[in-house]
């Protein structure tokens, strides 16, 4: 058993500080998020720079093949990636990290002179809009349908919805996207697929006008539908099992015995407790949806971050590829961090115990 000893030395050692960080829920989450971003930045650096036959070697080969002399190719490649090739690898790594921290991700190789940061900031809002709205719809709808399944369990509604959820959960977003285009756009002709390409119609002025909002929604609606369809299955099933488990808890029985209305039990007792664990799933779902955006934005020609990544891959534009990948990961990690904070705020037990499971 530990006894409380009053330390005579007021100075705190590094170990104490580290222990403080790991024992505090919010700080630990922050440390984890920073570590993830650092890890990904490091992986990209070594993939782009340090591995044999790495991106920078290929870039130099490409430039030489276009008739640039070997020295020039080396200098150009180094300038595009923002790397000083004369430094030892450790120095290059530090330089690279320093650039990333300052938001300098190098310059595009195919679209000459365009900075990668600029390219990303022009497309990022579209992905944030479409993915964010989809997640919101999925979360709300998934919780609603999941609760219905739990309340009506073993009725025909539950069987239909459960099978639907399991099926949607098993099919990849890419196939759902193809089917959506094929059926909605071509066979049933419900939506004009060709007109919907891009994030907005040409000539449309961005701003908080009804016409603009209607236009961007028109362009994103099928994409959002596909995002929702491809991730709602797992939410519904999870919410159903959480609700069923919560309905069996003693405090629900007590609440019933006290004569509380069904509506109050549903919102304050069952709903809140069953929804809580879903916030940790939100983290995984963000990564899943963003990962899917690479394929879906390409399929729908929706100019967001995923589209940019796919294009840079097909053009072998390494600086853009590296930058977009880093931004995608950073946004997923930050979304995770937010989900963790919201979870800690909603569920005081997590903060006090400091544990994750």
């Amino acid at each position, binding site marked *: 058993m530990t006894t409380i000893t009053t330390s005579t030395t007021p100075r705190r050692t590094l170990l104490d500080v580290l222990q403080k960080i790991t024992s505090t829920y919010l700080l630990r989450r922050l440390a*984890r*998020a920073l*570590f*993830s971003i650092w*890890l*990904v930045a490091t*992986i*990209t650096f070594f*993939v*782009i720079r340090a*591995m044999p*036959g*790495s*991106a920078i070697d*290929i870039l130099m080969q490409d430039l030489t093949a276009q008739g640039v002399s070997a020295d020039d190719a080396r200098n150009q490649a180094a300038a595009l990636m923002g790397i000083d090739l004369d430094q030892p690898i450790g120095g290059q790594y530090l330089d690279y990290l320093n650039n990333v921290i300052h938001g300098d991700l190098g310059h595009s190789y195919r679209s000459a002179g365009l900075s990668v940061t600029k390219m990303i900031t022009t497309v990022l809002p579209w992905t944030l809009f479409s993915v964010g709205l989809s997640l919101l719809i999925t979360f709300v709808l998934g919780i609603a349908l999941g609760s219905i399944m739990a309340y009506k369990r073993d009725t025909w509604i539950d069987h239909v919805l459960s099978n639907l959820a399991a099926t949607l959960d*098993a*099919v*990849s977003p*890419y*196939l759902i996207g*193809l*089917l959506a*285009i*094929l059926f909605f*756009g*071509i*066979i049933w002709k419900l939506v004009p*697929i*060709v007109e919907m390409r891009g994030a907005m119609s040409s000539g449309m002025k961005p701003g908080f006008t009804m016409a603009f909002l209607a236009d961007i929604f028109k362009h994103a609606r099928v994409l959002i539908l596909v995002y929702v369809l491809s991730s709602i299955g797992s939410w519904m099933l999870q919410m159903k099992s959480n609700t069923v488990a919560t309905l069996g808890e003693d405090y629900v029985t007590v609440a019933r015995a006290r004569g509380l209305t069904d509506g109050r039990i549903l919102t304050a007792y069952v709903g809140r407790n069953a929804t809580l664990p879903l916030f940790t799933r939100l*983290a*995984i779902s963000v*990564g*899943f949806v*963003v*990962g*899917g955006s*690479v*394929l879906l934005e*390409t*399929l729908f020609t929706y100019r967001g971050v*995923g589209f940019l*990544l*796919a294009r840079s*891959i*097909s053009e*072998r534009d*390494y600086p853009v*590829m*590296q930058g*977009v*990948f880093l931004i*995608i*990961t950073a946004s*997923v*990690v930050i979304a*995770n961090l937010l989900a963790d904070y919201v979870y800690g705020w909603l569920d005081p037990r997590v903060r006090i115990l400091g544990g*994750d499971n």
Partner: protein
Amino acid sequence: MHNLNDFIGSFWREVAKTFKILSRNKMGLFGFIMVILIILVSFVGPLIWPPELSANVLEINKGSSPAHWLGTDFQGQDNLRKIVNGGKDIVTIALLTGALSMLIAVVVGSFSAFIGGKVDNLLMELVNIWLTIPKFPLLAVLATVLALKDVVMLSVLMAILDWPALARQVRSQVLTLKNREYIEAAMMLDFGTPRIIFRELLPNMMSFVAISTIFEMTHAIYQQTGLVFLGIVPYSSANWGVMISAAERRGVLFNPQAAWSILAPMAAIVLFQLALVSFARSLDEVFNPRLRTSV
């Protein structure tokens, strides 16, 4: 010689027993037969019904007909014949990635659960961090830079990226089994961790392992399809993923007549997945004798 005969005899008895247990579960039997059939067709089919080498201009993008059950594609080639010839890559990728990632996951996950303490905490913290990184973009970037050419390398890369999620699931399974009496007995007899894991624990979570492996297999198929669509994995051979993306690129999505060329390979993938899942569900009864007697 006598020993060998004995061995073969007992092997067949074991196979017959397994088959008998399987046949009790209708869905399981269906899944099992379908999986075997798809693997057979994918590997033997191309020898009997080799791919068409030339285009057939008169038969482009036709629907289903007695001559072409699943219609024809943008080159006028028979879709069914392309599906028979395009399964080998898909089946190989699925089996390799599934087996490899599960193997790493079982070893790391169960050792982590057994050792516990600091090692376990550190490993699980790393796994949690790994889970927040979006895998598909990472896979796409790595596959591009590494310029992967063959199916085996692709499977290895996917297994390396995917095992941590499985390891976490295996760990939690082992943690629930770890305190059972027979495991405690094995530990007291000092059997050693590897033997306890592979001889005592693994058989008891076999159905879980099988189901997870199968989900990993379908995941691998979809990732491969996605990589083909992005143009990262080369079009060297015509597998189902290549069929989908070739049809998409040839503007099938603007031509309702050609819907067959895209729906047929999709149906093949979904059928394979469905067969695998229903087979896996029934494995519970094969591995768990308690469920068997109650049927």
